[in-house]
């Protein structure tokens, strides 16, 4: 009998450890990677001819990054690795991929989805100006291209990435003008109950903050973004600074020429949706997530989730989750998997679940801001849909949930398919209709998950 085909989607920490676990069991998994090189977002590699040392690129995580890169290099002869390959659709028991304008349909026996996460965006007036980046984007510029988003960046949002990226910029010689955090000191103290489950990571975060402060970077808590200011010169529109309110409601202004912005992460869940996996509303993160058990098994047989795609647990959590999902997959396929191996991984993940809860509590998604966004604020940048448009959908057009609002005013209908604006759009709709956010629902996913070239060839079916 042929060996079963297991496809791992994603080659970050979760995907790599999943593939490794499958190889150890004697399988030869297909590993799909949208990127040019393995590593995912967190351990993204620099281009081949760049020579910055790992310590400089990954900071405190250099050892983990190098270990993951090395592990992957050892796997290469034993896996079917496909870089720059997009998994964009599903039909029957086939995953559809695109690479260099060539479509392929891969029949699978099991799928491990390790597609990670992107920044969660809360729009504010001016957020679509040139010079405003997501935190992830600001980090990619630095890691992959050794570029800064500006010479005087302001970092605004909330969550651990806010401080990590600001710290990375500082270390790269680009001193941030300020770090503006919407979470208050009060919520962070509440979050400690969960955060203390991973003392080393907590200490690391505190160190980032201390380093920033010691270097004279002002850190502000409990802020409310007002707008990102613009000015126009010969190069066109540019960022001039950020206007915000401090925790006492006083108007403040920080001068800067770029903004890195993000409010925690949102899981990339479109593949699970196309695979008809059940979703449930997660009240902690105010997101709809695929339903999984502790091992990452979804409601669909043979479909597993691992890493931040199933809920945000960070890079180490993703490594454990990737290995665990692969073991579960092997067990479900009838392989003899020692029970203690799975128990060990489940145990290792426990503090991470608590930590994740602590993060969401300590650095919450500032969902209340959605209700107060001025009508003219662009929310869906692909389709140029404003908060006022969404409120019109909610009111005059009587859209009871996000897909109806999308049908009426195009929010989430563009190139990114609501991946950027979907969560904020739902908050605005829910606030306008004075209903709980879960009633606003979630934007249904559709193929292609990301834009697909019309000039495609070669269907293998």
């Amino acid at each position: 009998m042929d060996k079963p085909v297991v496809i791992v989607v994603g080659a970050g920490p979760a995907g790599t450890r999943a593939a490794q676990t499958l190889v150890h069991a004697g399988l030869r998994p297909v590993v799909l990677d949208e990127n040019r090189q393995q590593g995912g977002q967190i351990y993204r590699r620099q281009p081949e001819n760049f020579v910055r040392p790992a310590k400089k690129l990954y900071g405190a995580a250099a050892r983990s990054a190098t270990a993951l890169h090395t592990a992957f290099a050892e796997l290469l002869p034993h896996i079917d690795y496909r870089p720059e390959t997009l998994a964009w659709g599903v039909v029957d028991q086939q995953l559809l991929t695109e690479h260099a304008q060539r479509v392929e349909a891969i029949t699978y026996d099991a799928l491990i989805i390790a597609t990670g996460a992107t920044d969660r965006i809360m729009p504010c007036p001016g957020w679509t100006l040139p010079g405003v980046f997501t935190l992830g984007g600001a980090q990619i510029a630095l890691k992959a291209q050794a570029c800064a988003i500006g010479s005087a960046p302001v970092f605004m949002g909330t969550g651990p990435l806010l401080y990590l990226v600001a710290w990375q910029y500082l270390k790269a010689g680009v001193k941030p003008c300020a770090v503006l955090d919407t979470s208050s000191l009060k919520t962070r103290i509440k979050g400690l109950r969960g955060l203390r489950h991973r003392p080393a990571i907590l200490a690391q975060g505190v160190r980032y903050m201390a380093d920033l402060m010691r270097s004279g970077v002002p850190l502000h808590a409990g802020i409310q973004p007002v707008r990102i200011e613009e000015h126009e010169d010969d190069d066109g529109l540019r960022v001039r600074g950020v206007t915000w309110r401090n925790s006492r409601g006083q108007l403040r202004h920080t001068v800067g020429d770029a903004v890195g912005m993000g409010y925690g992460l949102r899981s990339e869940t479109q593949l699970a949706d196309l695979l008809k996996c059940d979703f449930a509303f997660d009240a902690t993160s105010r997101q709809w997530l695929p339903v999984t058990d502790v091992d990452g098994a979804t409601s669909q047989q043979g479909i597993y989730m691992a890493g931040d795609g199933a809920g945000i647990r960070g890079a180490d959590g993703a490594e454990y989750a990737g290995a665990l999902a692969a073991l579960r997959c092997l067990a479900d396929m009838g392989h003899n998997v020692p029970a203690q191996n799975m128990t060990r991984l489940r145990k290792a993940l426990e503090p991470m679940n608590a930590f994740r809860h602590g993060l969401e509590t300590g650095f919450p998604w500032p969902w209340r801001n959605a209700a107060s966004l001025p009508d003219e604020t662009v929310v869906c940048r692909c389709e140029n849909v404003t908060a006022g448009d969404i409120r019109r959908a909610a009111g005059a057009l009587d859209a009871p949930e996000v897909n109806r609002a999308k049908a009426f005013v195009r929010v989430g209908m563009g190139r990114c398919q609501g991946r950027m604006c979907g969560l904020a759009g739902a908050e605005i709709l829910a606030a306008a209709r004075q209903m709980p956010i879960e009633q606003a629902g979630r934007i249904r996913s559709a193929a292609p998950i990301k834009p697909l070239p019309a000039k495609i060839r070669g269907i293998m079916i």
Partner: protein
Amino acid sequence: MSHPAQPVTRTTARADVIIVGGGIMGAATAFFARQQGLSVILLERDLVGQYASGTNFGNVRRQGRFLPQLPLANRSRTIWGDLPKLIGENVEFLPSGHVRVAFKPEDSARLEKYAQDCKPYGLDLELYSGRKAVERFPMLDPDVDCASFSPLDGHANPRLAAPAFGRAARRAGATVLEGTEVSNITRSAEDFVVETTKGQRFTAPLLQISSGAWGQKMAAAFGEDLPLTPKAPQMGVTEPVPYRIHPVIGYASWVEEEGVYLRQVERGNIVFGGGLRGTVDLAAKRAYLNPLNTVRQMPHLQRILPDFARLRVIRTWTGIEGYTDDDLPVMGPSARVPGLYYAFGFCGHGFQLGPGVGATMADLLATGKTEIPLAPFSIARFLKPPAL
């Protein structure tokens, strides 16, 4: 017959007509029936215009239709132009023309014959052969053999049209109830009695079934069964590019897979559809698009519009359409039950007809007759003659 509707309570109401199904057919009928002075209750299981009416391509096309359907399509076309006056919005209707292109001589011959045959119905088409076709429509592939242009046709936004009719009907005094699923319909001595899953009870002497792909089951309950196959259209849209392609372009081929079409909306995206269709789960109310069919559409779209190859597809979708065996709708009075009317099963070509169907059904409901010939669409064509 225009007695006022009793006030709607939580559990019961009476009107002149109950319309089951709030797609574009039901919503437009509700609007025009109010214009005729009838009191109306429209019952929609989910949201107005959510299924085929909201997910179709958005073609406002007359050319190529079954000839005896043209009087209805012409009436509808007139209403499309009057929408801002009638319902207060234009639902992005662009009368920018519709062009059908053929690459094979036998397909060109069909276009030429149709252009002759539709003249008596008041539809004037312009034919362009070979090089002239590309001179007239420079975006087309130079290999085009024949282009048939219908200058007054065009396209509109299907996501907006039916809900706009629903809101206009409501403003005009119709009772439009969304999220209201019919569980049982019976006929008493003088009224139809419509019960819902929420336990409501509505009565009216007139009943219209306009529940699309779900219409067959309701007709069958009145002893008028017919074969109706649900199918899922293959729709998609590209990223936006500058607005240059004004007419709708359709590939006139009688090979199913080649039959693709496209239109560019003013904000720049190119909407496309056609070719092979996907499967439907009627009970779950879900249609499934086969993404491989999207891939199969690509070469044919590039055949008619070579520059399509430079774009990216950003989204696909599908819906639930009902197809009869003869590809014609069920429209008009019941053959068996007085007071019962049908407007469903529009076989993927109902969007253009919607406003005209609404006006024509309102004629029938209010007066029992209409000037629009409907004989070819009677449900009687599916009924077995009674055994002797």
